[in-house]
């Protein structure tokens, strides 16, 4: 069995990278963009190595374990390991972080939006610390260590939203951190209840014990406390209100990591801690969890239908998708849990891609307001439009793409829930969930019809900072000339100089710019993996199935 140096390296590389940034700020200043890329690339390497050398025959047991005492007085051990459940998530995290740096490294050559240009050192530092927290959460095999890593992400994310975010960033950041901290403090109490009753913090030992030694009422109490903490992060329906604001205001990479990884930390906690450690509590609370999950599915879909802002819509769609994940967990069956874990990874890939796209569109148009975008994306920027169409269709769950299998399996699990769960109730959940899937399709199609289809025209050409709004656009493929006069009328008083000086040398209208090279580079892996997992779901399911059977050992 291989040593535990791989997980350690996974954590150490971004951490050392961040520290180096703190210690030698001036030496690294000129190569900052490349630096972030290189560090996250080096961090990706052990993740890839992990995927390659993982013993797929024993996917149920943790591998690459490290187990060192840290705080004996608290019983806290530095215990890391990877199994079939955490491996895909670790790889996803390393990949998404790397792609974010790819996106940042070559992006922003235009002067739109102060982002990488605004305090790049702090940005790289923040993202690297974030990566440490995210990967650590998925690696931790000790309750308190899990909690510590769970908390590490809060501060970097707070700054990511609060410094590089949009207009309402201050409020969104505060809301995010207060909400999540409230959740995680309640979770801490739940973890301590488990610790007080079972006498150990080791997740492996607790999973093997399957809740023995804890009375039913204690298990329910602990499950509710831990569940609330995880549900805030996931987010589950009534606790989701921080999410739309955070997603909308966060910068592109923030949204990508928030949707792609941070939400997974909540659902991963259910699979890793709440359900296996507290099986009786899970069985008692599962009907409620399922109820909240389906409400979330329908609520998310309905909210999406009402959104005008593209990023906000994708954020609400996350609420719906996470509803499917929770429904899968609530069935407490191997099928449902497998579906939940699959949907988890698929959502990370697809929604990550969607937020990249929304960010790209927002960067070009300086708005994500769908009516203002004005449609016709496919005609104007065909490649960007096609990728957006692809991502939307993948997200709505078209068979053959990754989004389908998770939702299908979650609903299938609800058709035949675990023994002891009320089947009639779960059948109702299944029907409602199915309706939700229908609504999901509806809002994504509405979005596509509003944004990608139709004739390209500008309903509100706003005078953009740095862009001479009055200049004739160099390449109006399908531009309707009858709309033109409104633009100079609106902005003639503001930018007469730039117009009269030399219209031909002005920068090209960013709205006409199709996918650039760095965007292609950052998005292709996500597209490829979405198709791959869609066509070959067994790739992922074979990994999670043995682990799921172990963790459900006592329930089913």
């Amino acid at each position, binding site marked *: 069995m291989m040593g535990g140096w791989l997980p350690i390296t996974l954590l150490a590389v971004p951490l050392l990278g961040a520290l180096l940034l703190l210690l030698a700020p001036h030496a690294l200043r000129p190569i900052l963009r490349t630096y972030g890329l290189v560090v996250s690339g080096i961090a990706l390497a052990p993740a890839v190595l992990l995927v390659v050398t993982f013993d797929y025959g024993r996917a149920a047991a943790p591998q690459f374990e490290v187990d060192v005492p*840290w*705080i*004996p*007085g*608290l019983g806290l051990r530095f215990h890391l390991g990877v199994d079939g459940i955490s491996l895909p998530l670790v790889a996803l995290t390393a990949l998404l972080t790397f792609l974010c740096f790819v996106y940042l490294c070559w992006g922003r050559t235009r002067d739109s939006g102060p982002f990488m240009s605004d305090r790049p050192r*702090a940005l790289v530092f923040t993202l690297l*610390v974030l990566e440490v*927290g995210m990967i650590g959460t998925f690696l931790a095999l000790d309750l*308190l260590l899990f909690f*510590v890593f769970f*908390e*590490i992400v*809060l*501060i970097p994310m*707070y*700054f990511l939203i*609060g*410094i590089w975010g949009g207009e309402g960033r*201050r409020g969104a*950041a*505060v809301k995010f*951190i*207060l909400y999540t*901290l*409230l959740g995680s*403090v*309640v979770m*801490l*109490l739940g973890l*301590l*209840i488990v*610790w*007080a009753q079972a006498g150990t913090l080791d997740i492996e030992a607790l999973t093997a014990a399957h809740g023995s030694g804890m009375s039913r009422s204690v298990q329910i109490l602990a499950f509710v406390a831990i569940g609330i903490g995880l549900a805030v992060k996931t987010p589950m329906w009534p606790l989701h209100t921080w999410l739309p604001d955070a997603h909308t205001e966060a910068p592109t990479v923030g949204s990508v990591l928030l949707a792609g990884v941070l939400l997974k930390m909540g659902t991963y906690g259910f699979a890793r801690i709440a359900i296996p450690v507290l099986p009786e509590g899970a069985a008692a609370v599962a009907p409620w969890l399922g109820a909240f999950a389906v409400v979330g599915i329908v609520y998310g879909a309905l909210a999406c239908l009402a959104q005008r802002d593209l990023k906000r819509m994708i954020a609400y769609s996350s609420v719906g998708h996470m509803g499917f994940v929770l429904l899968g967990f609530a069935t407490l069956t191997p099928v449902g849990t497998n579906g939940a874990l699959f949907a988890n990874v698929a959502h990370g890939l697809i929604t990550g891609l969607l937020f990249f796209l929304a960010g790209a569109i927002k960067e070009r148009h300086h708005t994500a307001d769908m009516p203002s975008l004005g449609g016709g994306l496919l005609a104007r920027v065909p490649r960007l439009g096609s990728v957006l169409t692809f991502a939307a269709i993948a997200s709505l769950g078209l068979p053959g793409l990754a989004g389908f299998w998770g939702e299908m399996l979650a609903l299938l699990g609800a058709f035949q829930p675990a023994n002891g769960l009320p089947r009639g109730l779960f059948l109702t959940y299944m029907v409602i969930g199915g309706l939700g899937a229908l609504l999901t399709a509806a809002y994504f199609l509405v979005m596509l019809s509003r944004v990608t289809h139709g004739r390209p025209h500008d309903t509100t050409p706003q005078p953009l900072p740095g862009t001479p709004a009055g200049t004739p656009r160099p390449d109006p493929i399908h531009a309707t000339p009858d709309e033109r006069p409104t633009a100079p009328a609106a902005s003639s008083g503001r930018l007469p100089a730039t117009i009269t000086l030399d219209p031909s040398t002005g920068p090209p209208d960013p709205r006409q710019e199709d996918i650039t090279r760095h965007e292609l580079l950052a998005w292709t892996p996500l597209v490829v993996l979405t198709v791959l997992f869609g066509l070959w779901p067994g790739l992922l399911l074979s990994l999670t199935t043995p682990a799921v059977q172990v963790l459900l050992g006592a329930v089913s």
Partner: protein
Amino acid sequence: MIQQIDYYVIAPPLVLALVAALVLLLDAFLPARPGTRTALGLVTLAGVAISLAFVVAQALSGGPPRSTFCVPPNLAGPAGQGPAMCSFVADRFTLVFAGMVLVAAVVVVLMSMTQLADGGIPVGEWYFLLLCTLVGAITLPASRDLVMLVVALELVSLPVFALTAMKRYDGRASEAAVKLFVVSVVSTAIMLFGVSLLYGIAGAIYLSRLAAVFSGQIEAPGVDPALVQGLPAVVTVGVVLVVAGFAFKIAAVPFHSWAADVYQGASVPVAALLSVISKAAGFAGLILVLVVGLSGQAATWAPIIGIVAALTMTAGNLLAMRQRSAVRLLAWSSVAQSGYILAPLAITAASGAVGTSMAYLVIYAAMNLGAFAVVMLISRTVTRNELDDYRGLAFRSPAAGLALAFCLVCLAGLPPGLAGLFAKVFVFRELVVGGSGWLALIMAVNTVIGLYYYATWTARLFTPTPGTSRAPTSPIPSATGESLPPASPTPHRPPATTWLAIGLALVVAVLFSFAPQVVLDMTSLSAFG
């Protein structure tokens, strides 16, 4: 009869007292030059260091706890029954408290050297009073009888009034001193009344004897068994009054209202002293009286402590949210932190409660002093010292900005400030194991409320200053000279000693973050004896 005094045991306070006298003499006879100020500061530092060395030596020597000022066995009552009666005991509890107070004192003295560099404050008196407070603060945890406890507590409090008032010609400082004086005297009176009641019933002032009486092992001499079954109700009154007296000292609700005004009125080193050293002394006294002396009466005081803890953390956090001044915010935040320190004491079932409280106190001291040291640094360059003055600090002075950010995140209890996080985990664990779920829930909510103001302050550090409208008076903007506040006599002298103070506090906080076991090892075994 002649009493044997073990001078080695009382060496730490003795050294401080001698150095206090020395400082006063040196101040009187040395020529009044600027160099003298630094020299006196160094002498004070040396005294604190020697005292600390004695404490460390005692801690390392191991063996049974040493004690002195004991009642000889032949005088200890009929047949010398009951436990030993000593006034001064140097056990783990004492040594941990003394060590913490002395290390904190180093930080405070370093901050004082910056404060005193201006002139305007008489140096000799300042250090003399500071050392007197320290004598009290390290005598108090060693005290094992009621009279000595009260005297030591007064020795902590009295010089602080004067220190507060030393910022002469400042209305706020005088007001703060009067407020502190009145509050403190009232609390002392209340506590003395409680002490006298307890003494009246138990007929002894030694805590060990009190414990025996109030747990029913020895018959209470002040009670006529023919009239009263067991202990009379007046014991409850005595217990409540003593608790109330200490509640003043640690600024617990409902006796908290003085904190903000006094902290703001006093100079920053004194505020730091109040929030760490004086508070630690108050907690030491409270723990001694309750856990050692009145352990038999836990049914009376434990619920009170629980409720007071809940109210204290809630009130402190809610009041801190609305503050605009940095020092006031820290004042209320330290009230809230008192609540967290108090909470484990409400758990009487668990034996580790005292250790948990002490662990939190030790970690709190490190992070709070770090924050105060940076505030001290900023207070040199701005007049009002409001939160807005910290805007963009991380860009103007990255070291100070990052240090303050780390301390605030620590106080909030979030990574990377793992020290604060683990301190809270200790307390939560104690509460959950001890079955005080309600208190744990209240504390959980309070942690979130607390995060709000710590996080907004931290965010301010990283927010760029909007234009030059309120340019804090760094040396460069002489072009916009009119924005310079006129009342800063020596604006741009780099206060090296404050940097030392920041560095010391920060190193300790970082150490506690990565090796919290150090704190646990120190405090876990500090059961008395």
